[in-house]
């Protein structure tokens, strides 16, 4: 019997790298200093307003209660996450493959959850091949099978489709680097190995379920087929690799929308925003153009009389 503790160690390590990577990235974005406003309309949270209209349409807006509809905002976000609505509107061809890929990802995550739940809810099933105990287990097995296979198929369709699209459309090819192609192939490899594992050796996902269960219950695993082991290895490696790539856009996106595009919180006297600004206005300036005197603070600059250029710029 072969011992796969080395694979389990790899999975744990990659998982830790992923968690650290995501946490560090999110922490880094959240700790960035307050910035000047750069909001953009339409904002989905604007209550009772038609497309694009803001608080600034009200005379004396600063005296009126700000009406934000967070449910509308949540719906907007959900439509984007689950249906890629903006992409669908702008480019249906790109949407088809991009959505397939992401749907493959979402189903893969659901598949992992179902496998894990299946593993820990019926530990006796580790002992041998799967035997469905009752209707609940049958439903679980069915869902596990369905989401797993669907995720592999959709994921492969999406990645291969995007790969071909990026290679053949000049619009996209010019901006696609070798690294982008590598990433797509990497992801395609994960889904392809998953499909191969299912088809060749693990038709009921017993092996996959047992492996995930072993990770959760901290037990050793023996006897994995090569295909499933390869799939686990690729998936683990990808999970560790992802935090260092632009594929972390799902973390950045939260901040891009909430902290920049939809941030229309006004600076009112005595507000938290004003307190944060007092801090950044004391930052030192080191820009070197003639109209700026380096060494002072931002507060000094804006109150300085030195607004004149000392020489012609062009």
């Amino acid at each position, binding site marked *: 019997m072969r011992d796969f503790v080395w694979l389990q160690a790899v999975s744990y390590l990659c998982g830790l790298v992923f968690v650290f990577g995501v946490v560090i990235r999110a922490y880094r*974005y959240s700790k*960035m*200093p307050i*910035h*000047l*406003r*750069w909001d*953009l*309309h*339409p*904002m989905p949270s604007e209550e009772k307003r*038609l*497309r*694009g209209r803001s608080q*600034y*349409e*009200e*005379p*004396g807006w600063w005296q009126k209660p700000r009406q934000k509809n967070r449910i509308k905002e949540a719906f907007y976000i959900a439509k984007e996450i689950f249906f890629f609505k*903006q*992409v669908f509107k*702008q*480019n249906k061809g*790109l949407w088809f493959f991009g959505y397939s890929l992401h749907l493959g990802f979402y189903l893969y995550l659901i598949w992992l959850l179902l496998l894990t739940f299946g593993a820990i809810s019926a530990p006796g099933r580790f002992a041998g091949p799967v035997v469905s105990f009752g209707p609940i287990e049958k439903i679980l097995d069915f869902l596990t099978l369905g989401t797993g296979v669907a995720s592999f198929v959709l994921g492969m369709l999406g990645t291969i489709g995007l790969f071909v699209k990026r290679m053949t459309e000049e*619009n*996209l090819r*010019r*901006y*696609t680097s*070798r690294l982008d192609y590598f990433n797509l192939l990497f992801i395609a490899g994960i889904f392809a190995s998953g499909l191969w594992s299912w088809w060749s050796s693990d038709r009921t996902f017993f092996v996959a379920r047992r492996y995930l269960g072993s990770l959760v219950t901290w037990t050793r695993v023996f006897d994995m087929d090569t295909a499933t082991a390869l799939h686990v290895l690729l998936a683990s490696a990808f999970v560790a690799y992802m935090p260092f790539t*632009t594929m*972390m*856009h799902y973390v*950045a*996106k939260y901040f*891009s929308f909430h*902290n*920049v*595009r939809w941030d229309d919180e006004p*600076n009112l*006297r005595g507000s938290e925003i*004003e307190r944060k*600004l*007092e801090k*950044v206005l004391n*930052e030192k*300036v080191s*820009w*070197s*153009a003639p*109209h*700026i005197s380096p060494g002072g603070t*931002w507060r000094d600059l*804006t109150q*300085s009389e030195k*607004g004149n*250029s000392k*020489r012609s*710029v*062009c």
Partner: protein
Amino acid sequence: MSHIGRNPEQQLVNLSPDSLIPLPCLHHTSENGPLINLPTEEQRKKREYSLDGVCALGLTRPASKEEEEEWVRRFLGGLRKLLSKGDNWTFYQPLILSLESCAKCQLCSEACPTYVASGRQEIYRPTFRAEVLRRIIKKYLKRGGKTFAKVTGEDVDLNWTAIARLAELAYRCTLCRRCAQVCPMGVDNALISREIRKLFSQELGIAPREIHEQGTVQQLKVGSTTGMTPPALRDIVAFIEEEIKEKTGRDIKIPMDKKDADILLLHNAGEFMSWPENIEAFAILFDAANINWTLSSEVAGYDAVNYGVWYDDVQMARVAVKHAEAARKLRVKKINVGECGHAHKAFIVTADRVLTGDLNIPRESVFPLLEDLVMSGKIRLDPSRNNFPVTLHDPCNIVRLMGIVEPQRRILRKICPQFVEMEPHGVDNYCCGGGSGFAIMNSRNFKDWKVHVSGRMKLKQILEAFKDVLDPTIKKYVCAPCSNCKGQIRDLIDAYHLGQDYNIRYGGLVELVVNAMADIEKPFIEWESF
């Protein structure tokens, strides 16, 4: 993108009339001659034209290799500052998020009016200049960057040619942010263009003369970007009062430096010089409505513009502070920004987090006030006096960048029986092509570019809006409630003879309101003066 630093003696693109998108009922091909006056060899040797044959900045090539290396060193120094929290807290988070999140899906490209109108020239694609910047950052500022660039195929050579072309490229984007609006990742390529401009201005001292030396510097020094001093302002205001008397028979004194007024009205100073009828109209309307208001004659207090919002945070903050100081001195209850798009955005939104303490005086757009005056019945209005086709140009800074969409429309629907929308409109509008300072940038052949390329989509919209009434016997009005947009639309009308051939005129919103005032005998809008 990897070619941006190569072949300095050749242009990266050659613009031809044949490649631009067609316009309804206007046909100009290469047989009619070039739309853009290309530089002579002599001019090419003196200034940098190698991007697209157009020159916005007037950059001169370094005289020696050492000088070129010094430019590269300073550029990279500025880039480090742009990517530092301390030096660029103003836009650090928005910039980093935009730089790190692009999925290169190119959805932004089709939203960009300049890119589409140019016939989809690659260099005008919103992602082009952003990708150039990313490659420079990865190669020159990250550890192992040079090796990584070669491995990934994302190479770029940083030399004078690349720097000069990137600087020029930053001034081929109107900052309209349609690209940002459609991006599913939240990336803002217009912001990246703006930050590139900032790097050049705040570190290298490079910016268009019209925006910097003649713009913010002049405004802070003498009072206005037009060069108008406080004494000159008083003379012009006196002239405006006489004009009002002549047109309406009313003796209206425009309040100046009145303390404790409810409103300080901030106009774009270009209105005083080029469109005094806009100033007159506000004075007439406010007088009729008994509004307690004032102008200011403090330095910068009578010029709402803040060009810094396009290219330089330091200048932007300085001008905003000056505006607020003028209001504070007068102890006004609030500041209303007149018909100027970027002044709206700069003063009410972007500079909001620069003004603290007693400089944080309430600021609002004049449009809700106008809406209230029109809709409340306080002023007797007769829409039949505006019974000619009117279409509305939506200034980007007011609609998409601030969300003020409906007040101006309600006004027009009430006082203009033949109001027709452009398509698309509101937050989906197209820029006039004069945004981000282009409207006032006319040196060398830049005017040709902004009229024929960046303004092309707006021109198409105007013609399509009036397609059923193009008969020159029918006078038509493009309502553009923004000074810089008016300047650009004026240039479009002049360049394409839309006035002579189709009787298309332009003006602000308040002029239409006053033109509809039933108590004024003579029509306020003088078509002969266009």
